[in-house]
């Protein structure tokens, strides 16, 4: 049962990764790509959690915590650059 759930979750997350990647590669404006990047970081956090669940190692979750708390920094950097800040 849990196995099936993990398979479904991985399929969904992988689809999300591919869709966001398509937008990142194609996206006409920089804003599109930045939003796609943000979506990709969030998808990555859920992928890390799924891997921790599939491998049965709870300690992998630390990596997800670090990502969840730091991932927005890159987006802020681009946003400040685009509005001619710094």
């Amino acid at each position: 049962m849990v196995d099936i759930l993990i398979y479904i979750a991985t399929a969904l997350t992988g689809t999300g990764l591919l869709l966001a990647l398509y937008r990142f590669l194609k996206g006409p404006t920089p804003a599109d790509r930045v939003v796609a990047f943000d979506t990709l970081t969030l998808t990555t956090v859920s992928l890390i959690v799924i891997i921790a669940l599939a491998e049965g190692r709870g300690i992998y979750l630390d990596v997800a915590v670090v990502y969840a708390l730091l991932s927005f920094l890159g987006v802020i950097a681009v946003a400040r650059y685009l509005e001619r800040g710094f």
Partner: protein
Amino acid sequence: MSGLVLALTVLLAAAMIGAALVAVIGKSLPIAILSAGLVSLVASVLFLLLASPDVAMTEAAIGSGLTTFLFFFILGRMRGGEHD
């Protein structure tokens, strides 16, 4: 589970190579920098799949956070230079 891990590895490797190609031959410099950040991002998940959480955490904190940031800092200081 091994089929799942294999499929995930192939997906991540393809995503990483695509992002690397954009980083190297893309037209716009900010997008290239962002793609390099994306390479680090995907690479850290790959490190986790390769059973090395220490390296994954380092790559998460340094590769995709601080390095991307340093590039945009410098790029913001040199407006106009990115078209050379």
